[in-house]
């Protein structure tokens, strides 16, 4: 029994058990079982990663074959697991942060009744299993399986409050948009199968050079379409903000730390294919940069704290995709790691605030909460600092690395850097805006303020741990000139060994320091502006709806993506189908069928009227004609 199998299948087992018998066990047992299984999974994951680390750098791969999935004559694919530094890192993140979020959820979901409680933990465990399948996949079929299962668990968790139509709609929207991405991913898989006759990473990725440039671009773009669907990039980002309908731990786990990063993971995993086509990489980079900037602008005007963090996630994912797009896979993944920590922290802290204010999410009705919730406030400030890129925090290091690569990396482009920099500026502004309007300044809603209270320890502990983690993880990827101790880059080196050269930024020390100074200055200035705006007497929030400027209205309505999709896809498609149904199906096809029947009947009536009309002389005429006919035939055929 390979430890990997335990890591993978234990959460599944507890998920199924909880779903079927959880309600009867009672809340304590159900939650305990769920958290324990993820903790044990984390332990085994750590053990397997340590085992992996012991292997020599060159052959740092463990392949586990579970059973045969498909065995067509010339093509075999099995349910195989692959542990290598990339997936090692990911399983640690998934199980580690997953456990903390499970712990937090025990407190957060306390009010639910036993049935719903067990169902929640079953779904979250099922999500951990799906994410691990995705991450540990050794071939394209298993990664696609994980891909879809993660989509299903996100559908279930977003639509967890089944009674609420908005939650169910958000779940449906998330799954369908994911499915649009999966369509592209499926096309890529078939193209790869056509080209290589196999789906195993070991057979496809090392021989990627066999792909013609055109085919490489096609596969790359289709793979990125799948990645964009899952990581909410570009046009396919619309589902993430609505996914906030789900409980907050779900937002933290799925829509911040793990699932949304699957797209970045996929691009990193298939970097061999992407390297073959600069066009595909360009598209990835530019989509990432654009998404990062646009999402950041929208986040500046949102009032619902969870939506702010949702758009912030879309923006940060944009950075990771930008990083990967310019060929700096390690930098992108490093940002993925740091983001997982501080974004999970921010969501949990937001959840804690919401929990304290009994579901209140609108920041305009908060303020001065730092006296009531010191712990949540402190941890949230740490998280916001990392997000904004305050110097010496993990966010600062990881985002800088990406922006540096965008400027000087192998596929660098100044436009990319500029978009990235502007995005970073907006990020600093909206994180400052949120912190100051929630925790500082005068409390705006005294009633809510009175009742605010600090969250219980079971929610506080994960916050503290995540805060410490956020700061600590930054040390793994310090900039090159500071120290040669690069644990993160070294750890991932074997995975990206096939790249021409580890993309060392060809930048002088002066440029790097200059850039750092620029970023620090921006953060400081924008932070001060936010302080002035949101802690002064007249909170500078325009009430909902009456947008002061056109730009505000544009941002407030999130660039009208939802309305556009609603019109183009939903209404147009349904209208067309309805037309198709009425005219083609009922009219044309069914019409002909019924028409044939009616015609037959009409013909019968017509003949009856003509022949059997009682006129004897006509009968005589028919008789005579018949006689002639028979005589004629007899003559013709009787030689």
């Amino acid at each position, binding site marked *: 029994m390979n430890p990997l199998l335990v890591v993978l299948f234990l959460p599944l087992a507890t998920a199924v058990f909880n779903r079927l018998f959880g309600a009867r066990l009672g809340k304590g047992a159900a939650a305990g079982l769920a958290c324990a299984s993820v903790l044990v999974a984390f332990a085994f994951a750590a053990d397997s990663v340590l085992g992996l680390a012991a292997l020599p750098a060159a052959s740092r791969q463990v392949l586990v074959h579970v059973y045969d999935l498909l065995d067509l004559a010339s093509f075999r694919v099995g349910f195989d697991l692959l542990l290598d530094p990339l997936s090692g890192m990911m399983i640690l993140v998934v199980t580690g942060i997953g456990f903390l979020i499970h712990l937090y959820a025990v407190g957060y979901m306390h009010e639910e009744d036993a049935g719903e409680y067990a169902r929640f933990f079953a779904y979250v465990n099922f999500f951990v299993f799906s994410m691990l399948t995705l991450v540990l996949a050794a071939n394209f079929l298993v990664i696609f399986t994980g891909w879809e299962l993660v989509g299903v668990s996100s559908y279930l968790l977003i639509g967890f409050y089944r009674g609420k139509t908005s939650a169910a709609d958000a779940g449906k929207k998330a799954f369908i948009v994911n499915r649009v991405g999966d369509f592209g991913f499926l096309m890529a898989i078939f193209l790869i199968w056509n080209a290589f006759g196999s789906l195993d990473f070991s057979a496809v990725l090392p021989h990627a050079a066999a792909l013609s440039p055109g085919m490489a671009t096609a596969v790359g773009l289709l793979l990125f379409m799948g990645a964009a669907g899952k990581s909410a990039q570009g046009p396919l980002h619309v589902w993430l903000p609505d996914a906030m309908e789900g409980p907050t731990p779900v937002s933290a786990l799925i829509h911040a730390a793990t699932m949304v990063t699957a797209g970045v993971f996929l691009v990193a995993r298939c970097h061999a294919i992407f390297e073959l086509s600069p066009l595909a990489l360009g598209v990835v980079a530019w989509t990432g940069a654009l998404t990062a900037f646009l999402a950041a602008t929208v986040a500046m005007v949102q009032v619902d704290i969870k939506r702010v963090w949702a758009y912030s996630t879309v923006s940060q994912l944009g950075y990771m995709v930008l990083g990967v797009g310019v060929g700096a896979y390690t930098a992108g993944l490093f940002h993925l790691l740091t983001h997982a920590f501080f974004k999970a922290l921010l969501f949990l802290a937001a959840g804690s605030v919401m929990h304290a204010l009994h579901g209140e999410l609108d920041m305009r009705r908060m303020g001065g909460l730092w006296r009531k919730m010191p712990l949540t406030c402190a941890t949230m400030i740490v998280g916001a600092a990392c997000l904004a890129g305050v110097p010496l925090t993990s966010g600062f290091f990881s985002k800088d690395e990406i922006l540096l690569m965008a400027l000087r990396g192998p596929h660098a482009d100044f436009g990319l850097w500029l978009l990235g920099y502007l995005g970073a500026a907006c990020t600093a502004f909206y994180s400052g805006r949120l912190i100051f309007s929630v925790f500082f300044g005068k409390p705006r809603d005294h009633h809510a303020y009175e009742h605010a209270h600090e969250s219980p320890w079971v929610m506080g502990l994960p916050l503290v741990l995540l805060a410490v983690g956020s700061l600590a993880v930054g040390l793994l990827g310090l900039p090159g000139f500071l120290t040669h101790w690069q644990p993160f880059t070294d750890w991932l080196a074997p995975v990206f060994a096939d790249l021409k050269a580890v993309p060392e930024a060809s930048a002088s020390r002066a440029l790097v320091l200059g850039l750092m100074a620029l970023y620090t200055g921006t953060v400081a200035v924008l932070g001060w502006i936010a302080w002035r705006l949101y802690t002064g007497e007249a909170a500078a929030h325009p009430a909902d709806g009456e947008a002061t400027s056109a730009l505000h209205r544009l941002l407030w309505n999130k660039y009208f993506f939802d309305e556009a999709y609603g019109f183009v896809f939903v209404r147009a498609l349904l209208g067309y189908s309805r037309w198709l149904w009425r005219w083609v199906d009922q009219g044309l096809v069914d019409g002909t069928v019924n028409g044939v029947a009616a015609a037959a009947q009409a013909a019968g009536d017509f003949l*009856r009227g003509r022949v*059997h*009309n*009682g*006129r004897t*002389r006509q009968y*005589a*005429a028919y008789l*005579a004609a018949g006689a002639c006919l028979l005589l004629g035939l007899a003559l013709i055929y009787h030689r």
Partner: protein
Amino acid sequence: MFGVGFFLALAFALFAVGAFGVLTRRDPLVMFMCIEMMFNSGNLALVALSRYLGLASGHALVFFVVAVAAAEVAVGLGIIIAIFRTEKDVNVDHLSELKG
């Protein structure tokens, strides 16, 4: 000149005239006569062939044809008179109740 062909031709001519009469006349009595005419053309042909082939059975057949014709006329006229009793009009074109 007066071989069997001539008589056969005459019989066919009579048959055709009879058919024409049935098709065009609207008075049932005349139609009956034309039907009788067609019967007779048959008889003529039979007699001509009997003479030509030297057979007596032709004549026997004529016997039967005449008998049948007689029965047919009897029943036919009976019907016509019955119709006349109720309809007061025997024009064939007006009698079309027996329709499908």
